[in-house]
């Protein structure tokens, strides 16, 4: 399949994306459309005493002003988390019930308090400013650790464990304690991973349309998972049949996990449409996006490693505090879970003892963001490995080679219960080391030193778990012999239309131009899980393969009738259904057309040629484990704290490669996000819970000028858990990059006595760290 790279001339999507004919929610205008504006809490924590809507209602163009009281009066339900850790075998935990508008209390800045519907967007906004809300401020806590240790007041008074939702524990406490007691060396580090803004280029936005005649709702929304949105809104909020809601998610301008779960606005526009009899549109401004979007990451951790002088790692112990924000919202469980479960990484660790506390605070809710817990896990393990190597005076690469899981040990069950099916970790490390000219480092370091600069390097390994839940794909021939792919997955920049079309064209030997790709519409797609957690090529691709098989089986029935042969004697080869041992044949396209004739064999076989296929991932079946290595070299100016990335090599095992160009594009994008996390980005709040990074003037997104030249190599280690032998690729770059960058920086500055530096490693922070080290702080 590698040859697909040579044939690659661009994505099928590119024409519409590059010519401005993409179709995003804000491109859609429905007849008689009205607009929604939000009234958001300016307080991080307060009792909601009352809301006076009179003045707003009297403003020009205003159709309705709705509050939490109206939500209750109309019987709209609150939204629980999409699922809790318990579903994955974790603890029960306190699951918040979040109303779509707050009724008696606000718990973070940006909590939704009221909405205004008006003829124009500006009228709605102007009136929203006139909604008078009476707040009674409460004490605020923004740090997870402080919230547990008694600062602030409980956010959820009916939670018996205060601000703790649950504590997830993994591993073996006794075995770990014994290993620590027996180890030659133990060391402890404290790490902070700040909160990050998903910052999708297309902000969240939606249009709700209630059709009173049909008693049916249509939601146009920027979503990674239209069916998931529909289920939550039907079941929890509107309490209606799913068939009464249609969710359409057209082109989506970036999701990164932000759009994997619904936000209150998705339900609010539907309800507002029902109340006003008008389609209602809402598109987040950038400021609203920064304030109201779920965020990624946000973890504090105390981590320890125990090893012997010969480099054998014996155990890892860690306690983490995950800042859930005000709600346990959406798909917050995977990052919470994976941040612990993937700590063993590619190593055969004797024992682990891991605890993760999910803590409520007065900041925006946390949920999935590219990598979702895996970057945190990788950061902890890889930072510890480098610190341990320094402590015992061993080359950090040799330390890794000494502890990696051998290919012969596959399938391998980790100390946290993951079962890796495949992976050539040592091979990967050696290849990456060679590609980055590890041996030439001393000379380069000397050259840097001559310029007064410090050079540092790192080699890190990462592993990812990809492919959650099952998936369904469908193939449907049209009466004229053209083919439609009905995808349960959802592309929002990944290029699925290209890859799935290429696969099907290849399998069926039909021209790609005769294939149409359809996604993102609950009326057209029977069911789909959407796209996140690097699942689509494995689950979508495997389901597509099975759909193809089902389609061919049915086409053989037609061939058997037309060619007067036994089904068992018919083979499908290069677009033709052939009777074995004869020259009788029927093309697949001709067979398809026969299925649609108003008379003939279709009478007997049933009208229509379609095939559907299912593939299954976790839970219930094995996921896959993309993995890789990164080598990074940096130069640090010890006087100014200025940092440059001099070398960046990424080696990724993505299983069988479907489209190398798109794989590398995913790796590059992930590295950009990982670099943002390591060096530039942090969502910050002051002690009153006010967002202090609410615009791109303060929140630093990675730009082209920040990116190093990336040498990306793909290693094909076929995956054993799916018929396409593919692994995920979407999150890979984002997972290893923070650890690679920070380890390289640490390698440069460790000789000055620095033991730790927090992300983002800005110039100011690096300068301060070096100065503190110099002063012996």
């Amino acid at each position, binding site marked *: 399949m590698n040859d697909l790279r040579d044939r690659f001339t661009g994505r099928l999507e590119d024409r519409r994306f590059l010519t401005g004919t993409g179709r995003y929610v804000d491109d859609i205008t429905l007849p008689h459309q009205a607009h929604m504006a939000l009234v958001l809490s300016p307080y991080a924590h307060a009792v909601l005493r009352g809301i006076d809507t009179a003045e707003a209602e009297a403003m020009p163009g205003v159709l309705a002003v709705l509050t939490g009281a109206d939500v209750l009066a109309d019987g709209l339900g609150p939204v629980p988390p999409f699922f809790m850790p318990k579903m994955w075998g974790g603890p029960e935990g306190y699951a918040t019930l979040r109303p779509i508008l707050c009724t008696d209390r606000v718990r973070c800045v940006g909590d939704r308090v009221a909405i205004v519907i008006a003829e124009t967007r*500006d009228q709605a*906004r*102007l009136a929203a*400013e006139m909604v008078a809300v009476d707040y009674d401020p409460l004490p605020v806590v923004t740090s997870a650790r402080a919230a547990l240790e008694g600062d602030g007041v409980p956010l959820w008074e009916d939670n018996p464990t205060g601000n703790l939702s649950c504590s997830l524990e993994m591993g073996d406490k006794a075995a770990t304690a014994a290993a620590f007691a027996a180890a030659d060396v133990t060391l402890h580090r404290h790490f902070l991973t700040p909160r990050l803004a998903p910052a999708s280029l297309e902000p969240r936005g939606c249009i709700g349309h209630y059709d009173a005649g049909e008693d049916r709702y249509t939601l146009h929304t920027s979503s990674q998972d239209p069916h998931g949105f529909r289920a939550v809104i039907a079941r929890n909020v509107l309490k209606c049949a799913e068939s009464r809601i249609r969710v359409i998610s057209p082109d989506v301008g970036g999701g990164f996990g932000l759009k994997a779960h619904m936000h209150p606005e998705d339900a609010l526009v539907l309800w507002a449409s029902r109340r006003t009899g008008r389609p209602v549109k809402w598109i987040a401004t950038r*400021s609203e996006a920064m304030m109201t979007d779920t965020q990624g990451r946000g973890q504090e951790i105390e981590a320890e490693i125990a090893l012997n002088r010969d480099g054998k790692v014996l155990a890892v112990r860690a306690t983490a505090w995950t800042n859930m924000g005000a709600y346990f919202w959406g798909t917050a469980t995977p990052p919470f879970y994976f941040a612990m479960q993937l700590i063993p990484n590619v190593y055969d660790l004797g024992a682990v003892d891991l605890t993760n506390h999910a803590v409520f605070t007065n900041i925006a809710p946390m949920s999935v963001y590219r990598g979702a817990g895996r970057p945190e896990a990788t950061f902890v393990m890889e930072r510890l490995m480098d610190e341990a190597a320094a402590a015992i005076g061993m080359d950090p690469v040799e330390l890794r080679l000494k502890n990696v899981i051998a290919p012969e040990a596959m399938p391998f069950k980790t100390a946290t219960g993951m079962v890796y099916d495949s992976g050539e970790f040592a091979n990967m490390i050696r290849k990456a080391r060679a590609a980055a000219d590890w041996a030439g480092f001393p000379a380069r370091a000397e050259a840097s030193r001559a310029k007064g600069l410090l050079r540092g390097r790192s080699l890190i390994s990462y592993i990812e778990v990809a492919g959650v839940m099952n998936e369904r794909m469908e193939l449907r021939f049209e009466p004229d012999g053209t083919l439609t792919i009905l995808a349960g997955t959802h592309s929002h920049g990944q290029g699925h239309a290209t890859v799935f079309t290429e696969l099907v064209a290849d399998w069926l030997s039909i021209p790609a131009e005769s294939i149409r790709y359809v996604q993102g519409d609950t009326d057209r797609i029977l069911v789909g899980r959407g796209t996140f957690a690097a699942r689509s090529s494995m689950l979508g691709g495997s389901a597509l393969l099975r759909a193809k098989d089902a389609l061919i089986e049915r086409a053989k029935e037609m061939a058997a009738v037309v060619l007067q042969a036994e089904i068992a004697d018919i083979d499908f080869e290069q677009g033709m259904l052939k009777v074995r041992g004869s020259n009788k044949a029927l093309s697949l396209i001709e067979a398809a057309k026969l299925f649609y004739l108003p008379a003939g064999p279709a009478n007997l076989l049933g009208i229509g040629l379609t095939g559907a296929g299912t593939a299954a991932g976790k839970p219930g079946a094995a996921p896959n484990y993309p993995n890789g290595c990164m080598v990074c070299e940096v130069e640090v100016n010890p006087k*100014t704290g200025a940092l440059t990335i001099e070398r960046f090599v990424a080696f990724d095992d993505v299983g069988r490669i479907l489209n190398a160009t798109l794989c590398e594009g995913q790796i590059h994008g992930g590295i950009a996000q990982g670099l943002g996390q390591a060096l*530039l980005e942090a969502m*910050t709040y002051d002690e009153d819970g006010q967002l*202090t990074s609410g615009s*791109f*003037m*303060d*929140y*630093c*997104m990675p730009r082209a000028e920040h990116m190093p030249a990336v040498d990306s190599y793909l290693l094909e280690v076929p995956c054993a858990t799916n018929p396409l032998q593919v692994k995920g690729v979407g999150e890979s770059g984002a997972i290893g990059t923070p650890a690679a960058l920070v380890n390289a920086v640490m390698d440069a500055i460790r000789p000055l006595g620095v033991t730790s530096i927090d992300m983002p490693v*800005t*110039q*100011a922070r690096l*300068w*301060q760290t070096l*100065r503190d080290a110099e002063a012996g702080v």
Partner: protein
Amino acid sequence: MNEFQIIRPAALSDAVAAFNDAEEAMYLSGGMTLIPSMKARLAAPQLLIDLSGLPEMQGISDSGLSLRIGAMTRWAEILRSDVVAGAIPELARLVGQIADRHVRNRGTIGGSIANNDPAADCPAAVLGLGATLITDRREIAADDFYLGLFTTALEEDEILVAIDFPKPQAAAYAKHPHPASGYAVAGVMVARMAQGWRVAVTGAGADGAFRLTELEAALQSGPVEAALEKIDVSAIQVLNEPAFPADFRRQLILWLARESLGRLAV
């Protein structure tokens, strides 16, 4: 954005009169600062007075001793101007570090100076070169112009018409851009004028742009290296932002002074 009216007067006196007649009026130049703040509802004028139709505020000219730039001149025009390149090339270099080309195509020098954002670049040139600010009613010396963050000596209805920059014997500007916004976390302009040295700092000061008089005096009396060694920045009141520790900002002033003086020597 709230509803507003917009007019484009052809005479300065009409612009001022319109300002005073209206309940809540604001002058509009490039709109690169004003329009975003209106969108964010931080400003809600009922009347916008577009200054782009006033001939006095246009044009760039070299009088021999100084360079006069109309307040309505857009950054892009300054960058393109042969007159600026000939008279004070360092001014064009400074302007080239402002924002991006889209913003430079709209933003004006007058709008920037009137707005007096503490992180803007231009105050370093105005103070560093000792410019004269020419308004519809008077001339204001640079040293009397800056009164604090977003505050200038301009009266409420006063219009900045042009800026007169004396030509330096040599000048250099160095900037540490904010990684997110591109504005100056600190920026230092050093200039050797006929009357002596001037050094101005933007971006860093707690009260906005200021002159580093201590360094000016040291440069006056001795070689550059000795002057840099001598000055003490530890007492400078700098802007307080968590992302930029005060000591780091003070340090930046020193580095940037060194960098710009280094460029002067070349």
